[in-house]
């Protein structure tokens, strides 16, 4: 890679300062070559691939100490007076704040609160009712070390006697995306190391309602599950009893007397439907997403931003519901009869690449159309921006460019220098006024097809990996050809846990979700 700015590696600088010639790389390789002269190039490449030189350690048998069971924890002392227990926890995305200057990470909503671009304090509804708090009311937390103001996020995911604040925000410097953004939870903590050499992340603080208010930037939506089959869970006992070929989510609601007529009609419709499809042997690209494996971390979302040149829109526009995340993570609580969360189902929601896509026929200029390999193509250059496709999309996974986010010096510029270097040259940067959506990383599909053609072979299962699938740490996402009977995605699509979101609308999605397996059924899971 060419140097981005007028810079050089640290090693080169030291060499230069010490008056030696040559690059640091040559210097380093020279030193190691002296130790491993034989087959050095292979040795070097292997070490780079592994990230270091490792030797196998001898295994040792270990046993739990019998004294372990005697360890007990004292219940936290009840808070007395005004003082409140406050837990400071590392932000799942920004961590201690080292990620705060990256717009991709700032724009990625927190996996639980779904809040982006700012910090918050989690308050239980009972506590909020006691204090007369509404979501977004700013609370001043004052510990013996410092004071900071945080907007309240009212949630049952925290105990009534505890407030919880994430770290990560409130930088006074660091960069344009991190500076002066919300409040720093570390200010509440003491600098003193505790007995175990770490820091205490629990602290006693007074909480005062300031009377100020801010709008919470959250992507959280309404949690109504209307029995339409958006998210599905299976209790472990039921999941264990499933056999291949079972379809627990395939509801048969046709009454006996209507069966014949419905079947006849279905057959006619099937014939009709095939008229519309392209002739010939084509792949049908599909995705399988295992909700049991999904942790809701959001890595897929950011991977999608990186791969597809998706603009980050910033705090103000995100608050107005204008984020462009082609892939979003929906977090539905599983709650008991009192509404207390018993866990969550995280569901990555992206374009379902429907076989009978409702978005396609409504486009007046064919900007949304069906490709022969079963994708819902979106031709940015042809799009005039009527937005009808989004209205007709039951999954609401189409996103509109309200401004020109790539405009140099524009108010909402998403790729200011040097972030423009992040742009993927295989993907268009969209203009204002066009619709965009998940393409199943069509650039990777075409790239793999071209490569296969050059090598005079067919595309093999696994040649194409979408950015989300590639990034998913738990490998919950699998991409492949549904027409290939030997592909992994075909196998997963036939899994008894598999279901299609809103299958009742007859959109024939290409994405199969595998229901989340949970220990016990809850009255509600969405």
């Amino acid at each position: 890679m060419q140097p981005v700015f007028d810079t050089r590696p640290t090693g080169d600088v030291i060499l230069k300062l010490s008056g030696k010639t040559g690059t640091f790389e040559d210097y380093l390789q020279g030193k190691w070559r002296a130790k491993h002269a034989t087959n050095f190039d292979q040795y070097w490449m292997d070490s780079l691939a592994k990230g270091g030189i490792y030797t196998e350690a001898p295994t040792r048998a270990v046993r739990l100490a019998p004294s372990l069971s005697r360890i007990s924890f004292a219940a936290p002392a009840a808070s007395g007076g005004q003082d409140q227990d406050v837990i400071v926890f590392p932000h799942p995305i920004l961590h201690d704040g080292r990620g705060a200057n990256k717009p991709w990470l700032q724009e990625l909503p927190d996996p639980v609160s779904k809040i982006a671009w700012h910090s918050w304090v989690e308050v239980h509804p009972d506590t909020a009712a006691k204090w007369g708090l509404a979501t977004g009311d700013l609370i001043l937390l004052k510990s013996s070390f410092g004071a900071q103001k945080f907007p309240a996020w009212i949630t049952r995911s925290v105990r009534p006697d505890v407030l919880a604040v994430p770290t990560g925000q409130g930088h006074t410097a660091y960069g344009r995306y991190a500076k002066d953004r919300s409040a720093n939870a570390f200010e509440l903590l003491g600098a003193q190391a505790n007995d175990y050499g770490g820091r205490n992340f629990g602290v006693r603080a007074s909480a005062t309602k300031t009377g100020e208010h801010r709008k919470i930037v959250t992507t959280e939506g309404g949690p109504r599950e209307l029995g339409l089959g958006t998210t599905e869970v299976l209790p472990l006992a039921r999941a264990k009893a499933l056999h291949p070929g079972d379809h627990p989510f395939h509801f048969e609601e046709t009454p006996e007397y209507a069966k014949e007529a419905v079947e006849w009609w279905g057959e006619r419709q099937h014939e009709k439907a095939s008229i519309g499809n392209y002739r010939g042997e084509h792949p049908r690209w599909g995705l399988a997403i295992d909700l049991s494996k999904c942790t809701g971390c959001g890595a897929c979302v950011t991977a999608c931003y990186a791969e597809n040149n998706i603009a980050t829109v910033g705090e103000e526009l995100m608050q107005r519901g204008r984020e462009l995340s082609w892939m979003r993570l929906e977090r539905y609580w599983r709650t008991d009869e009192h509404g207390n969360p018993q866990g969550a189902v995280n569901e990555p929601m992206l374009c379902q690449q429907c076989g009978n896509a409702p978005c396609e026929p409504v486009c007046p200029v064919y900007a949304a159309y069906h490709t022969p390999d079963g994708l819902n193509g979106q031709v940015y250059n042809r799009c005039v921006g009527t937005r009808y496709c989004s209205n007709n999309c039951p999954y609401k996974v189409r996103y509109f460019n309200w401004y020109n986010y790539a405009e140099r010096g524009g108010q909402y510029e998403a790729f200011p220098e040097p972030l423009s270097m992040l742009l993927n040259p295989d993907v268009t940067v969209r203009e204002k006024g066009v619709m965009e959506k998940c393409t199943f990383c069509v650039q990777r599909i075409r790239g793999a097809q071209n490569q296969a053609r050059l090598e005079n072979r067919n595309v093999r299962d696994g040649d194409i990996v979408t950015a989300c699938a590639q990034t998913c740490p738990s490998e919950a996402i699998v991409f492949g050809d549904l027409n290939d009977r030997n592909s992994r995605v075909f196998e997963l699509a036939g899994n008894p846990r598999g279901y299609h979101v809103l299958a009742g609308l007859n959109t024939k999605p290409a994405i199969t979700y595998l229901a989340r397996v949970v220990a016990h059924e809850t009255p509600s899971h969405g």
Partner: protein
Amino acid sequence: MTTHLRLPLPKPLQDIIHPPPTPGVLGVFSYLDTTVDAIKKLRAAGHTDFTVYSPVPRHEIEDALGQAVSPVRMFTLIGGIAGCAIGAWLTLWMSYDWPIVVGGKPVGSVPPYVVIMFEMTILFGALSTILGILFNAAFAARRLGTVQYDERFTNDRFGIFVPTVSDKASPVEKLLRDAGAEEVRRG
């Protein structure tokens, strides 16, 4: 006597659009029944080639004149059928010229195209009706703009213009006056 305003035009347009007036007799009537009476008398006297002015369309005048039904209806019919055909051609040909599959539907789906065909039927039918009116009234109506005219004809008077050469004008004048014309002019 003043005719309605005429814009001077360059030659030869002036001669084509504003030819010199046709000689004839113009009767001005205050009443509908006298006008109808005059029409009947003129027709009885063998005149077929005269113009009747009226501020409103009246069936009495139409009946007295015994006119055939206007050919405008053929314009409407042909325009409508042509519009429907154009609508069908537009939608089907264009669909197959750039065959794109959307929503699992056939490339040429007739049911949605019926809407376009219907709208085109109306559009072409209406436009060709307008053309029919303009064509028939402006071109087919003989001597339009060359006949005698009076500005009261668009207000509250009826009029009859009978083209005649001057030596045959006297009986016509008498006929009109007898029928009840309040004013008779020769031009």
